[in-house]
C-alpha cells in the first residue's frame, strides 16, 4: 500500500516534469526539469529493487550528461527569444504532433492492457538477489555472460570521445 502511494506520487512528479521539459520556452529551464525527471526515475528504480541502476542513473545521466547539456547551452549563450521566439513556419506541425502523440499513447495503452504479459521467468528472484547483492551480481554477469558487449562498449566510448573532440575543435 505504501508502495502504491509512493509510486503514484513519484509518477505524477515525473509526468509533470516531463511536460515542463517539452513546453518550457527557456532551454535552461527545460534542462533543470529534465534533471528532476531523471532523479524521480531513479527513485522508481529503487522501488523496482534495482539500486545499482538507480545510482548509475543519477551519476551518469543527472551528473554527467545533463551537466554537458547545461554547459553547451551556456556556451551558445541562447536566450529564449533567439530560437523559439518567432512564429512557427510550419502551420500544422504542433497540432498534428500532439494529435499523433495522443493516438500513440492510446495505442500503447491498449496494447499494454490487452496483452497477457508473460515471459519465461528467470532464476534471479528478489530473495536470491539479496543474498548475493545487486551490484555484485551485475558485476559478475558483466564479466562472465556479457563480457563481449562490455568490451565493445568501451571501444564505443573511446570513439565517442575522439569524435566529440574532433567535431568541436576550432582548429585541428
Amino acid at each position: 500500500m505504501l508502495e502504491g502511494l509512493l509510486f503514484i506520487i513519484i509518477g505524477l512528479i515525473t509526468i509533470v516534469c516531463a511536460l515542463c521539459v517539452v513546453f518550457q520556452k527557456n532551454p535552461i529551464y527545460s534542462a533543470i526539469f529534465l534533471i528532476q525527471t531523471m532523479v524521480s526515475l531513479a527513485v522508481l528504480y529503487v522501488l523496482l529493487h534495482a539500486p545499482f541502476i538507480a545510482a548509475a542513473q543519477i551519476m551518469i545521466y543527472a551528473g554527467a550528461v545533463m551537466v554537458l547539456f547545461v554547459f553547451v547551452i551556456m556556451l551558445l549563450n541562447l536566450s529564449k527569444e533567439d530560437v523559439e521566439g518567432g512564429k512557427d513556419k510550419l502551420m500544422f506541425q504542433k497540432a498534428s504532433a500532439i494529435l499523433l502523440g495522443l493516438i500513440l499513447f492510446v495505442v500503447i495503452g491498449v496494447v499494454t492492457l490487452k496483452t497477457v504479459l508473460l515471459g519465461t521467468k528467470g532464476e534471479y528472484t528478489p530473495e536470491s538477489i539479496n543474498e548475493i547483492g545487486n551490484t555484485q551480481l551485475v558485476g559478475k554477469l558483466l564479466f562472465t555472460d556479457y563480457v563481449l558487449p562490455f568490451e565493445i562498449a568501451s571501444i564505443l566510448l573511446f570513439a565517442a570521445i575522439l569524435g566529440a573532440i574532433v567535431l568541436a575543435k576550432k582548429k585541428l
Partner: protein
Amino acid sequence: MPNILETSFLDLIAYVLLFPLAGAIINGLIGKRLSKSLVGIIGCAAIGLAFLVSILVFIDLLKLSPEHRLFEKEFFTWIGSGSFLAIAGLQVDPLSMVMILVVTGVGFLIHVYSLGYMHDDEGFYRYFTYLNLFTFSMLLLVLANNFLLMFIGWEGVGLCSYLLIGYWFEKKSASAAGMKAFIVNRVGDFGFILAIMLIFVTFNTIDFTEVFNAAPEHLQVGSLVVTMITLLLFVGAVGKSAQIPLYTWLPDAMEGPTPVSALIHAATMVTAGVYMVVRCNVLFTLAPFSLTVVAIIGGATALFAATIGLAQNDIKRVLAYSTVSQIGYMFLACGVGGFATGIFHLVTHAFFKALLFLGSGSVIHSLGGEQDMRKMGGLRRHLPITYKTFLIGTLAIAGIPPFAGFFSKDEILLEAFTRGNLIFWGLGAFAALITSFYMFRLLFMTFHGKSNMDKHVEEHVHESPINMLLPLIILAFLSVVGGFLGFPAASAINSFLAPVIGSGVHHAVDGGEVHHVSNNLMFSMMGISTGIALVGIFLAYFMYIKNPDLPAKIVGKFKLVYKIVYNKYYVDEIYDATIVKPTIKSSFFLWRVVDAKVIDGFVNGVGRLVELKSEVLKLFQTGYVRNYALSMLLGGVIIIVCALMFL
C-alpha cells in the same frame, strides 16, 4: 535417264510467269546501266519466250480430251490459317489458255512496237520494267487457281497501270490521271474483296474448282447469297473494266504512252473484268438477277460511251471511249448467257483495238506529238502502211464482214436478240451504228481530206520505222482472219470453251451450249448488222468528205446537246462535286478537329495530368526535418494500428 519428251509441256506453265518476272527484275535492278538496245531485247525476249511456252502448253492441252482439259499445278501453300487455305497454284484450262495466248501474243507485238516508239525517251529501262511487271501480273491473274491469287494479279495490274499512266510523272495531268485510275479501281476492288470473303464464308474454300463444283448443290437459284456474291464480283469487274459508273478513269488514262494504252487499256487489263465474270459463270448463272444487271450495265455503257466518242477531238480519247463501249458489248454478251461469245469478242477486240491504238501511235509519232484530229488530215499520202492497217482495223471494229469484228459483234447481237430481249438488241444495234460512224469519222478526219497540219509539222511527217510497222501488219492480218475462230455454226472457240462454261447447271439460264437457231434468223441478223455498219460509214462519208461544213452547221443548231456530249455529260464534274469534294472536306475535318484537337489533346492531356499530380506530390518534400519526423511517426502509428487490427 529420264526421257525429256515424256515430260508434258503443261508442267512448264510456271515459265510463262517467270520469264516476264525475270525480265522485270533484271531491267528494274540494272537496266539503268545497260544500253537501250539491251534493255529492249531483254524486255521483248521475256514476253517472246513466254509466248513460245504458251504455244507449247496449248499444244499439250489439245492432246487431252475436251472433258479433261483441266490441268492444275500447285507450288506451295501461301496462307494456311485455321480452315482458310490459300495455295499458290496455276490452272490451265481452255479459258486461261485463250487469255494467256492473247496476253503474251499481243503483248509481244506491243513490246516490239515500243522499241521504236519509246526510243527517244529517257526512262527507257523503267518503261520496260513496268511493262514486263504488268505482263507478269496479268498472267498471274488469268492463271491463278483460286480467288485470292487472282486478286493478287488483279491488284498487280492496277498498280502497273498506275505506274505506266503516270510514266511521264513530271507532267501534272499524267500523275493526276494515274492516281485517278488507281483510286477508282480501288472502289471496285473493295467489292471484289467483299465477294471473296463472302465466298469463303459460304463455301469454306476459295479454290475455283472446289467452289464451282459445290455451287450448284450448295446454293439455290436466285438466292440472296449467290446474288450478293455475284453483284460484289461484278462491282470489281466494273471498276477494272471501266463500265458505268466507274469508267471515268479510262479516258484520262490516255495520258500514258500510246503502247501502254494499247496493251493495258485495250487488249488486256480492262478485259480482266470480263475474264473474271466468265470464270465465275457457274455462280452468275445461279443468279439471274445479277446477270440482268450485268447485261443492262453492259448495254447501257456500250451506248453511252459511244455517244461521247462522237464529239471528241483527241484521237486517243475517241479510241478510249470506243474501248469502254466495246467492253460494254462483252458484258452484254455475258449478261444474256453468251459467255463464250463474250470471250470471242474479247479476243477479236484485242486484235483490232491494239491495232488501232498502235496505228494512232504511229500517226502521233510521225506528227511529233500532235493528237488533235482537227490538226490532221490527208495523211493517207504520207503514211501509206499506217493508213492501210488502220483502215483494216476500222473496218473490223465497225463490223464489216469478213473482218474479225463482224463475226464477234454479230454473234453478240444474235445472242442478245434470242436469249435476251429486243431492248438489249436495240441498245447493241444503236451503239453499233454510232461506233461505225465515229470510227470512220476518225479515219476520214485523220487520213482523208485536205491537210490541216501546222506548216513545220507537215515538213517533218514521215512513215514510222519498221519495228513499229511490223506489229501493225501482223495485227492487221489477225484482224482479218481472227473472225474465223468463231465462224457461225462451226464455232471453234465456242466448242473449245465449252468445258469451262455451263457445267452442271440444269435449270438456270443456258450455259455455253451452242444455241441452235434457225439459219434464216442467223442470216437475216447478219444482214441487218452489216447494213447498220454500212449506214454508219455512209453517214460519216457524207459529213466529213462530201460536205465538210455539215458538222459545224449541226453543232450550231444543237448547241446545248453538243456541249453536254462534248463535256462527257459532265460526269467527272458531278463525281467531283458529290464524292471527291465531300471526302476532302471530311478528311480536313478529321485532321483539324479529330486528330489535332481530340487525339493530340488526349495524349497531351495525359501528360498534363501527370504534371499536375506531381505538382501536388511535390508539396510533400518540404525540406524541414520536423515534417519528415512527423511523417515517420505517422507511418509508425499506422503500422502498429494495422498490426493490432489484423493480428
